[in-house]
């Protein structure tokens, strides 16, 4: 299928918005009685627990340290007693990992770090250490440790910072509400990024389907007189919020295969991440909570400020519970989110949304080569080829001929596919099998 005479053919797709909660003020979720804090809440190695059964912890106290270079600190989301350490499956990767179960004492006593209002007069290393110490990771969903992103290797000059407020996935409104209600914090934290990266040039990217946020942020920039920051209203297209797509659309720069935006002088930070940086520097707060959009088949869709480790059931219940014939619980958006087997799954740093919905009832048919997936792919790949090659177990060809590792798994191809082929599933398998080949060699 072509894209029609009037549709520009440069990848990306139109998806329904379904932002049911974009006018709902952020509410504080009631404190959970028990939290299950997974050690794998970020990209990279799982964290190592520093506490044992019976330890008394305060909110914001460090309970796990990084398990590698790409890893992050984890802090107690509530005050109370460590009940046990358990093994559970990672909500995103489904690999077994440790988790710390903390029973609340109901007091929510905080352990704060000293404030750093005077960050400008401190060494950069100290400020970076604070961001690392607060356990901050990319809150847009990818959960890449933020301090790594903010310390470009020597010789790499950053000339553009992009604040990512695109939020291109349907249903999710957490970043939108954060911009509307905590916009000042973002604006206050931008100078920290400018100073850290030695780069004054900042774009605040927001998709055009959020005109109120575009207006609000434009006003705030003028009000606070932050220099070098411009609002960029982006075309509403999925996956605009993906780093590489955003860098290409905004600056026309292509991030080289297997590299990060860093390599073309760009650092992209999600708005919620910037809030976390603000809280860590100005308030001395470690990252223990985030805004979670609870939406879809719930009675009242809401944006909830929830502590990490809160079981999904508590958040869903505070929205009036599951309604209708929903049979799927998704952490994240409908395009890239991960479905959960039950409502016990605890929220993590990357959980920007809990979506309750009826799973699409589709039957996979044979590909009839309409090339819709090729037109939709934002990375300019040929998704249908992976299905063909996977059926013949030709894993090596997936990469050497068709570059499967460049896929960002945005799901655009599977969304548009008229034969309802679960292309992302084939692609994940192909990547995994290709990696195994490398291990064998």
């Amino acid at each position, binding site marked *: 299928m072509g894209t*029609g005479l009037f549709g520009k*053919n440069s990848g990306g797709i139109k998806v329904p918005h379904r932002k049911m909660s974009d006018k709902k003020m952020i509410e504080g979720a009631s404190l959970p009685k028990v939290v299950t804090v997974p050690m794998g809440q970020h990209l990279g190695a799982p964290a190592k627990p520093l506490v044992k059964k019976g330890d008394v912890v305060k909110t914001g106290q460090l309970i796990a340290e990084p398990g590698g270079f790409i890893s992050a600190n984890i802090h107690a989301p509530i005050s109370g007693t460590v009940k046990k350490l358990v093994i559970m499956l990672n909500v995103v990767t489904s690999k077994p990992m440790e988790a710390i179960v903390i029973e609340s004492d109901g007091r929510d006593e905080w352990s704060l770090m000293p404030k750093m209002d005077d960050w400008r007069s401190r060494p950069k290393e100290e400020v970076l250490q604070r961001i690392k110490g607060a356990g901050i990771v990319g809150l847009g969903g990818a959960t890449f440790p933020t301090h790594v992103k903010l310390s470009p290797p020597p010789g790499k000059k950053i000339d553009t910072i992009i604040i990512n407020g695109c939020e291109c996935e349907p249903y999710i409104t957490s970043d939108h509400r954060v911009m509307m209600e905590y916009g000042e914090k973002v604006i206050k934290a931008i100078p920290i990024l400018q100073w850290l990266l030695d780069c004054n040039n900042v774009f605040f990217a927001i998709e055009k389907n959020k005109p109120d946020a575009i207006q609000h942020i434009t006003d705030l920039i003028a009000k606070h007189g932050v220099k070098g920051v411009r609002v960029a209203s982006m075309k509403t297209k999925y996956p605009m919020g993906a780093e590489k797509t955003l860098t290409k659309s905004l600056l026309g720069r292509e991030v080289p*295969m297997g590299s990060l935006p860093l390599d073309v002088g760009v650092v992209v930070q999600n708005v919620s991440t910037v809030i976390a940086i603000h809280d860590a520097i100005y308030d001395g707060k470690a990252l223990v909570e985030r805004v979670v959009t609870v939406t879809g088949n719930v009675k009242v869709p809401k944006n909830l400020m929830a502590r990490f480790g809160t*079981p999904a059931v508590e958040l869903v219940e505070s929205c009036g519970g599951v309604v209708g014939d929903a049979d799927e619980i998704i952490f994240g958006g409908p395009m890239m989110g991960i*479905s959960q087997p039950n409502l016990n799954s605890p929220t993590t740093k990357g959980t920007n949304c809990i979506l309750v919905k009826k799973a699409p009832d589709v039957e996979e048919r044979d590909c*009839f*080569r309409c090339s819709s997936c090729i037109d939709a792919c934002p990375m300019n790949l040929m998704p*249908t080829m992976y299905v063909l090659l996977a059926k013949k177990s030709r894993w090596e060809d997936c990469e050497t001929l068709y570059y499967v590792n460049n896929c960002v798994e945005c799901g655009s191809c599977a*969304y548009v596919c008229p034969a309802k082929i679960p292309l992302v599933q084939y692609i994940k398998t192909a990547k995994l099998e290709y990696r195994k080949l490398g291990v064998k060699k």
Partner: protein
Amino acid sequence: MNATDDSQQPEKRLFRVMSGPHLRSPRSIDKAMFMVILMLMLPAIGAIYYFGIYVLFIILTAILSAVITEYVAKRLRKRKFYFDGSAVLTGLLLAMVLPPRVPLWMVVIGAAFSIAIVKEAFGGLGHNIFNPALAGRAFLTVSFTGLMTRWVLPITTGNDAVAGASPLSGSFVWEGPTQELYRALLFGNVGGSLGETSALLILIGGLILLIIGIINWRIPVFYIGTVFLFTWLLPGQDPVFHILAGGLFLGAFFMATDYVTVPLTNTGKMIFAASCGFLTVAIRVYGGMPEGVAFSILIMNGFTPLIDRYTVPKPLGYMKPKPKEKEKKSKDAPEKGDTA
């Protein structure tokens, strides 16, 4: 898959676990097929108007034979039969490339060949190499050449079933101003296959398919464009006549745009369409047959896997793999020269 627990223990409910995306577009194979069939109705109704009610029987026979053949073939292959419209479309397309007075038994044979041999024997929808309708017509042409080239003039010209040459054949003579000829070709008041007559009706249907995004504009534009350009460059050829006459519009909008048998990428589609245009003119002007659309598309269908292989797009941020290896090669080159 909801477990039916009582509501007091909601956390024990089980939910479906599936790979994303958890949202799918409303598009489907059936809908795409239906739209193409709908747009083909225009020239089909036109053909009934020009050549009489017998044409309706040709169309119905072709569709029915195609669907029944597909059903039987699926049963024999122990595969699930989907009424996805692809067999209906193949039948309809086959009818459109048959002469207006073709015997119905030939229609049955043609449709059965298209579906059973060209499509199902290769694995069904999505796996066939050649366009089933065109291959069916080619099969009938070589098997029953006489009956397949028996053209009649449209009844709207005032002649009922009077033999008359199709415009591209050597015996075709037009007496009158060229403008009148163009008008006849555009509206379909000429001899030819059912779908070869009215360029205008095909154009309308084709443009609608372009606009709603069912077919890719590159194919008709490059196909028709190449035919126009090539005949314009050749001495003694009339480019306007060449694009309006014969099955070019039907081929460019409905045959060369068949998803299954044409290249996947945009670059591939342009190469495919331009080659079709080139071959069409070559066959028409230098070949032994009056019309070249069907065979040019069939020939290019055979090249589709090759074109696909060589038009893989470069991914975003593409970098040449291992420049070191390339350096080695350039170092190797003079060495080889030395030994030789």
